[in-house]
């Protein structure tokens, strides 16, 4: 129908429906008007009043009939029919509350799980920064090294060159996560913030609600511009929403910063997973990063950034340009940039924030919730089949009194829409309630506000609407399909359906149950695999002791210690710690294994090792104090540990790990040989066993250690091997620290086991979510099985009674029912195992040392499935044993 017609007819249709009285009144007026004019005309012809009236009425005909004909001519229309159908559908739902509630619950579960996971994917992977302008054109920017997988940071000079030379992008900006102690009054805490380029707020299009963002040039110099923009939350909670906040001073890491602005509400920065509380310009980098001034150092790859494409530019085009710039940099600065490229990543693949860690989990979750939706649909399908059987008579009567097939179908669709609509609305609510669930599942850590929001935007709404539409069609089509070939005469004659029809329906219901069992089996197998994997990860030795070693650090940087003072204090402190009762040994190290920080890396050269052309071998290393290996329990395979004598005046030394020895020295003994680190030659004095450095899932990789005193950093991590409890050691350490300097504070103290657990928390999240959903799926399948078996028992009363009459005992009947249930389960498990063998490979990235086809996992899933089946069949089976053969057979 054309738009023009709608223009004319819609208002009329609307009036027909909602102003019915007025429309009727107008018709009556129109007809009276007609009569009066006719009477007038008749009078003019010379009739008497009486004659004139009679003739006019006769000519027009019965008013009531005309009114009725007009009403018919107006016809029933879409609006009217739909409202009628909705009203009728609603009455139907209320008449069968059990059916309706169960159906809607199933749908809420299925749709809610889907919507929740999609909203997480939207909020974490696809549109993580709602406050940022044009985030659809945003790409993450990180470096790569030839011959190595994974991403590195970018150096500040390289970033400036990119910014100058990139023509295809609107903006390049830096956002590097950092932390600071924040003391306001006598209350101090650690909080997270970002080191950003001066163009940050302009580039992302976020305008501070108070004050300003950063000005050009504020990211130049060494500690040159102590200004800070604080988050809305920080302003509200810590500064009590002080309207005069701009211009006030706040100490960050012991340097007073001027607060120049307050970021808008619900802007959490640009780091997926954590909420940022402050932003400082890159010129303040030295104050927040422990390893010195890096703005002019092309080999210090520390920044993380983003880039926004110009409209219409593709990622490939931009990547080509960026790579070309990187190649020019390689030529100009071979010493630092050889083999280095810069890569663009879609936001959902961002290598340097939690998008990367959440991606595999969310991928698996998408598949899992699809399964749950299918299982829920199968349940709803089963319910509908039962109800369509019950409504058969109603449908038959309606067809017999003249309802067209199309009209009935529309009615069924409307009822489907009602169910699906309620399910979707409920699902959206569930998703809304669950939008912060991921944070609850992640282990808390001090000073970090986890922020993994679900984002229910129009994409997610559209998707739910799509699911709703499909569900509506299915919900309408199933009963419509059932009523399609109703034999009017036959069905009206007797209410019971033919034996074949019942059998066909039973077959369909059993089929649906087999599908449910199959899908739940796959989910169960997946959940068991993930559990096994988590257990493996957590029981794998990281290569260092975890139970009796604790880790913390002292706020030297924040307290404004310079290098000489820090050296003295660290020396004094380690002596005092070692003398503390219960402490076996203690050692500093720049980074603690599996922590968040990034290891330093350096180009290396080894006597007698010729690297492949075009490749500059680089290796990560850690700066550790004496007794580090003893404290962490990393075995030294040969050579000696660092001692206090290995200080800045002594010859440079290094300890390499086993993998590094194998790669660069092969069978030769590296001890006493030379290794070039940051352009200086050091002598290898020992070989340590391999351990885990950044992730529990990493493969053994080359790594080495240098003495802390020869490559000094302020405020390193302090590791203590102790027999005392965490509380005791924490208290005595704080005493020792305060004895040296009352202004110093301790950061959070945790055991290395806790460190391992935190680093494997994505696996824990995945296991928890998949287990919850697999449990739900199992429950749904059990309900489905229970329904089918109860129905089957009710249908085969005569058969059961006959068996009983012929001498079968209750045990036999129970066995009969359970064996029927198990037969369905067997079919489902068989199909599920076949499909599972192919599908569990999708878990690959989440599994650790577990084959996706692990027979033990499949066996365990099967056992759970069998137990569930028996449980679901017990009640129907018990009902079967209560059959009274005499009564059933008489009926």
């Amino acid at each position: 129908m054309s738009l023009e017609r709608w223009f004319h007819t819609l208002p009329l249709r609307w009036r027909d429906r909602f102003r019915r009285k007025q429309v009727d009144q107008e018709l009556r007026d129109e007809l009276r008007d007609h009569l009066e004019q006719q009477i007038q005309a008749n009078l003019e012809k010379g009739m008497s009043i009486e004659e004139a009236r009679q003739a006019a009425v006769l000519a027009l005909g019965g008013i009531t009939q005309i009114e009725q004909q007009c009403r018919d001519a107006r016809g029933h229309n879409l609006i009217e029919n739909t409202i009628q159908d909705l009203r009728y559908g609603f009455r139907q739902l209320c008449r069968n509350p059990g059916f309706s509630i169960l159906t809607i619950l199933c749908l809420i579960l299925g749709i809610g799980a889907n919507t929740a996971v999609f909203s997480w994917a939207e909020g974490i992977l696809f549109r993580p920064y709602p406050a940022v302008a044009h985030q659809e054109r945003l790409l993450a920017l990180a470096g790569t090294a030839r011959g190595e997988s994974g991403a590195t940071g970018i150096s500040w000079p390289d970033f400036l060159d990119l910014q100058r030379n990139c023509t295809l992008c609107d903006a390049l900006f830096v956002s590097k996560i950092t932390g600071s102690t924040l003391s306001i009054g006598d209350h101090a805490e650690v909080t997270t913030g970002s080191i950003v380029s001066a163009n940050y707020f302009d580039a992302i299009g976020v305008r501070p609600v108070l004050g300003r963002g950063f000005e050009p040039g504020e990211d130049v110099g060494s500690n040159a511009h102590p200004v800070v923009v604080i988050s809305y939350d920080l302003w509200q909670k810590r500064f009590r929403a002080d309207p005069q906040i701009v211009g006030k001073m706040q100490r960050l890491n012991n340097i007073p910063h001027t607060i120049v602005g307050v970021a808008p509400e619900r802007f959490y920065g640009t780091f997926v997973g954590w909420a940022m509380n402050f932003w400082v310009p890159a010129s303040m980098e030295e104050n927040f990063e422990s390893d010195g001034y890096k703005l002019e150092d092309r080999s210090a790859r520390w920044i993380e950034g983003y880039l926004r494409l110009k409209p219409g530019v593709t990622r490939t085009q931009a990547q080509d340009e960026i790579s070309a710039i990187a190649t020019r940099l390689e030529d100009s600065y071979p010493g630092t940039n050889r083999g280095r490229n810069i890569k663009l990543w879609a936001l959902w693949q961002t290598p340097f924030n939690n998008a990367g860690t959440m991606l595999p989990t969310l991928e698996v979750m998408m598949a899992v919730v699809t399964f749950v939706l299918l299982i829920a649909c199968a349940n709803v399908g089963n319910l509908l089949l039962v109800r369509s059987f019950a409504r058969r008579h109603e449908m038959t009567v309606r067809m017999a009194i003249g309802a067209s097939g199309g009209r009935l179908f529309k009615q069924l669709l409307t009822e489907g829409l009602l169910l699906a609509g309620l399910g979707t609305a409920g699902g959206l609510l569930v998703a809304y309630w669950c939008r912060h669930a991921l944070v609850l599942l992640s282990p808390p850590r001090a000073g970090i506000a986890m922020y993994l929001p679900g984002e229910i935007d129009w994409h997610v709404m559209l998707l739910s609407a799509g699911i709703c539409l499909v569900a509506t069609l299915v919900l309408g089509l199933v009963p419509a399909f059932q009523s399609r070939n109703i034999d009017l005469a036959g069905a009206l004659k007797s209410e019971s359906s033919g034996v074949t029809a019942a059998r066909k329906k039973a077959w369909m219901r059993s089929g649906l149950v087999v599908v449910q069992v199959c899908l739940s089996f796959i989910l169960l197998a997946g959940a068991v695999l993930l559990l096994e994997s988590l257990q493996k990860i957590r029981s794998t030795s990281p290569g260092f002791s975890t139970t009796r070693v604790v880790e913390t650090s002292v706020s030297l940087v924040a307290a404004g210690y310079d290098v000489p003072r820090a050296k003295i204090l660290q020396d004094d402190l380690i002596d005092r710690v070692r003398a503390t009762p219960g402490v076996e040994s203690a050692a500093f190290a720049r980074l603690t294994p599996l922590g968040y920080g990034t290891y330093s890396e350096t180009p290396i050269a080894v006597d007698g090792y010729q690297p492949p052309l075009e490749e500059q071998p680089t290796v990560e290393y850690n700066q550790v104090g004496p007794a580090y290996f003893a404290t962490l329990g990393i075995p030294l395979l040969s050579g000696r540990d660092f001692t206090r004598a290995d200080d800045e005046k002594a010859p440079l030394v290094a300890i390499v790990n086993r993998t590094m020895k194998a790669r660069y020295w092969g069978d030769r003994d590296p001890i006493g040989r030379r290794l070039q680190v940051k352009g200086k030659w050091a002598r290898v004095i020992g070989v340590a066993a391999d351990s885990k450095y950044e992730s529990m899932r990493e493969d053994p990789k080359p790594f080495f250690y240098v003495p802390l005193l020869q490559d000094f950093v302020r405020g390193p991590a302090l590791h203590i091997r102790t027999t005392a409890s965490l509380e005791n050691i924490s208290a005595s350490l704080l005493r020792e620290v305060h004895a040296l300097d009352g202004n110093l504070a301790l950061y959070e103290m945790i055991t290395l086991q806790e460190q391992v657990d935190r680093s494997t928390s994505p696996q824990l999240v995945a296991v928890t979510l998949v287990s919850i959903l697999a449990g739900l799926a199992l429950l749904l399948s059990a309900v489905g099985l229970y329904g089918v078996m109860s129905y089957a028992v009710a249908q085969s009363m005569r058969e059961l009674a006959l068996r009983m009459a012929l001498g079968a005992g209750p045990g036999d009947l129970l066995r009969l029912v359970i064996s029927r249930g198990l037969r369905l389960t067997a079919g489902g498990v068989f199909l599920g195992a076949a499909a599972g063998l192919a599908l569990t490979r999708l878990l690959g990235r989440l599994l650790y040392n577990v084959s996706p086809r692990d027979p033990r996992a499949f066996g365990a899933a099967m056992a759970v499935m069998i137990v569930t089946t028996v449980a679901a069949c017990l009640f129907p089976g018990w009902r079967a044993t209560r059959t009274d053969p005499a009564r059933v057979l008489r009926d």
Partner: protein
Amino acid sequence: MSKPSDLVQGTLDMLILKIVALEPLNGWAMSQRLKQISSDVLGVSDGSLYPALHKLERRGWISAQWKSSGNNRRAKFYSLTRLGRGQLEKETANWNRISTAISGIVKLKEA
């Protein structure tokens, strides 16, 4: 009262559209005009006019407006819409085609 049975289906619609095309009219005037033009041959009863008008209105071919008519009374006046004009042209063309064909057949000399 039902529609006159010998009126070809849809013809009444076409006649109404044609009459309204000349000038906006109310129901009574339209019935007078119908009788006058067709010299009562078609025998359209006044009663069957109104359902037809309602139907055409809801198809968007004519639109109605309440206007005051002569002696201080408000009457419903119908006028042709743009859509209605198109429909009228289509039906007129159709009618011409069919009537030519039929009269051709009717005029055939019997052998």
